[in-house]
């Protein structure tokens, strides 16, 4: 069908086109405790077509575009209508000109697996951890997916890949002072028995802590340590400050050779965009334009040394594109997690949701599980919130220990001063 679409596109006086074909197959299991509630399977093929139309106005070159979707079984007349409508619309999309991904022909195929066997392995790994007395698996969703994607464009690009993805959503419960739960998402490429069972085991321990947590006290003047997911989400703010699109849109104010951090004391960030992280759900050899992805260090010792971005926005700000990166890594810090925990502090591993605003730098979240250490004892706490702004911190420290977490390889913990803790 991809050739049929390309033929129809060539009949219109367009300046360029791109077709992305996606073939998605999945096996899905939905559990309540250890009973499966529903099994699902998916087999879907779809096409995303981008049509480009160049024009000039007052000696400036513009490139209009429009994206539309084609589904299998669409009649020829309907495809022609979609092309004509998009061709008309693209004429009013007055964006500065930018190039398409250059001609490359490359295949990236992973080892082949039987999808149902992978799904069964993932399920087995999840339920290998049910030994805790007061904590248990409440509900689990397992999705194992095989993606086969191909991107072609009018420049002669033809790249394709196959990729396996595993998504496990876990709700774990525990009873103590009251019955409580914690939520977790684990994203991997193929199922990794050890990583799945370790993650579930750790989660069962953590929810046990929450079951005995007391209400967050109203404390002032102590540093906040973010561990795990919240640390990753906070560091993503700096990744986005070096993004070409945000720079072009004037949302990121950081200039090259200037600091991405404020005047705070402590560690300076070193950050890279990386196409491939071992076992990452997000690792891809090329982005949605078909551009082969590149690794790039963008922040070194807190200083912005380069931007990263897709082909369009990189062209607009005059840099070589890296591709729309999905993974990033952050260098280690100066303190171990144990050293961070020596002085009084407030540590959070689980928020209801971590809210980091890439435009304003505002940070906040309701605490699901944290610990308050007053200098003598460390008690688990829940409720209340941590709020602040990443542009106005007093100090910033990264842990020496690093971990792989989905699209991120970097410090496990981040310690900051200048945040407000709301509690009872």
């Amino acid at each position: 069908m991809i050739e049929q679409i390309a033929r129809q596109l060539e009949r219109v006086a367009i300046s360029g086109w791109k077709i992305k074909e996606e073939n998605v197959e999945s096996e899905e299991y939905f559990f309540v405790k250890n009973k499966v509630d529903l099994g699902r399977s998916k087999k879907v093929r779809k096409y995303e077509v981008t049509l480009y139309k160049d024009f000039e106005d007052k000696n400036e070159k513009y490139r209009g575009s429009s994206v539309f979707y084609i589904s299998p079984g669409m009649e020829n007349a309907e495809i022609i209508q979609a092309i004509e409508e998009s061709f008309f619309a693209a004429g009013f999309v007055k964006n500065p000109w930018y190039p398409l991904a250059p001609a490359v022909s490359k295949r990236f195929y992973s080892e082949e697996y039987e999808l149902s066997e992978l799904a069964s392995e993932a399920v087995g790994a999840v339920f290998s951890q049910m030994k805790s007395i007061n904590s248990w698996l409440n509900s689990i969703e397992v999705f194992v997916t095989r993606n086969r994607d191909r991107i072609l464009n009018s420049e002669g690009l033809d790249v394709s890949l196959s990729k396996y993805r595993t998504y496990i959503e876990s709700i774990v419960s525990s009873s103590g002072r009251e019955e409580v739960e914690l939520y977790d998402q684990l994203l991997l490429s193929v199922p990794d028995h050890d990583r799945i069972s370790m993650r579930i085991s750790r989660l069962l321990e953590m929810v046990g802590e929450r079951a005995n947590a007391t209400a967050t006290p109203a404390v002032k003047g102590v540093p906040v340590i973010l561990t795990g997911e919240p640390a990753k989400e906070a560091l993503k703010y700096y990744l986005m400050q070096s993004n070409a699109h945000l720079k072009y849109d004037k949302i990121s104010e950081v200039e090259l050779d200037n600091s991405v951090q404020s005047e705070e004391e402590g560690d300076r960030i070193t950050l890279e965009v990386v196409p491939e992280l071992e076992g990452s759900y997000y690792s891809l050899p090329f982005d949605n334009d078909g551009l082969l992805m590149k690794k790039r260090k963008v922040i070194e010792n807190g200083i912005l040394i380069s931007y990263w971005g897709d082909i369009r926005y990189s062209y607009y700000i005059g840099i070589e594109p890296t591709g729309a990166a999905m993974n990033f890594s952050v260098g280690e810090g100066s303190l171990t997690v144990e050293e961070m925990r020596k002085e009084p502090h407030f540590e959070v591993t689980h928020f209801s949701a971590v809210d980091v605003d890439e435009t304003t730098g505002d940070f906040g979240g309701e605490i699901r599980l944290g610990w308050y250490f007053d200098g003598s004892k460390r008690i688990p706490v829940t409720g209340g919130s941590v709020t602040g702004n990443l542009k106005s911190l007093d100090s910033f420290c990264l842990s020496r220990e690093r971990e792989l977490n989905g699209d991120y390889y970097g410090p496990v913990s981040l310690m900051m001063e200048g945040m407000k803790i709301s509690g009872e």
Partner: protein
Amino acid sequence: MKVTNSKYLDDRHDLLRNLISILESDFPYVSILGTDVKGKLFQVTTTGISVNDSRWSERGFVLRVHDGTGYFEFSFNEIDSESLNGIVEFVRKKVAVFRKAMIQNNLEVAKTPIPDEKEWKLSFKDEVKMLPGVLSAEEILGRLSNLKDEAHSLSEEVINVMTLMENVQVSKLFISSKKDLFQSYIWSQGYLYVVARRGKKTKYSMKGFSGLKGAEILDEMDEYVDKVVENARMLLFAERIDPGTYDVICSPDVAGLIAHEAFGHGVEMDMFVKERAKAIEYLGKQVASELVNMHDGAAGVREVSSYVFDDEGCEAKDTVIIDRGILVTGISDVISASILGTKPTGNGKRQSFERKAYARMTNTYFSPGKDDLQEMISSIDYGFLLEDYYSGMEDPKNWGIQCVIAYGREIVKGKLSGRIVSPVMMTGYVPTLLKSISMVSKDFRLSGTGACGKGHKELVKVSAGGPYIKAKARLG
């Protein structure tokens, strides 16, 4: 103007009916949902323009079978007379493989009753004032560009503007041995989004527009540009709030966020099945002040999540969740209702034909009361009027609240002082917040922009809202 039908679904109706007939020889229950959702998203920003198919666009089918023990589903988007037998064989094989995997892992299949459906035939086409195709891309982009230019002309502190309109036509077909249902309707949404900067401080303000409407939604956007610019600039003066518990008045948007996040998610009855909802312990008990009445329903009001039947072929309802402070019932999908022995409430929704159906909210709101906003402000010695929001997150098990509110206007001795705090994080325990509601205004407003997730995925369209409410809340 009447919404058109879906040729794609019409053309495949008999084939789908045939597929059901074949599979019924193997399975005691078989149904198919067919979807044909198409739309356009027009967006103009300070730095670029785009006209793309809506991200909500989808076309395909989800087949659901019950094998006498439980359910299995297959999502696909290719079917013709030649591939029919292949689909039948695939489903037979997959159900067997799925059962075998459970045995290998020493896991059980939950026993779920076979649905007891009643005969129902329906063909519904909604109406809008202006079908989306009536205005050309040139006209729409021209109007959005004018709004963007107007925002910039109002202040040099405006550094980026985004104006957007999205029109989506939803057509769905549901077939089982007893049901043959078709519906088609259009929802639209629009945004005005303004980023302002002064020195090192950057803030933004946003106004959303939504409804079962067509291109006429553009008319509503025209009169709000100056207000959104004014708000974005006002936030540049905002301070951070001192954490504490305050008397607050929540605007209809914020009240809707509380209804949705704090309470709505907790009464989605698949959470009852999983024993994840504290609400189950409170059925028939007081959870809110006597002034509080709360509804959810695709049938009660006209907003983006109003429809005639849900994604499991159940009739839309208007469900009273809280009646004068008493928790009456939850909202349910088919599987949860059959396990709990209750009736489905028409809340079985899917992100698309590719995803599972869950119990989901539709249009969730507090009913209006008798108070006047000005009197509500006058009644507060010190507190905040909370307006607009950025996000929220549910905690059905422990009834915690996380609402990120855009800003609060300080109230001192019954008057707005002019001081602004932003952003404001509202946290606390749901019944404590709802029981503290002491005044409810006569106003009523729903908003259905954006999308709602279950946990961190499964996005669906919903709306939420209500009147102004006065309560006590912990802010940080």
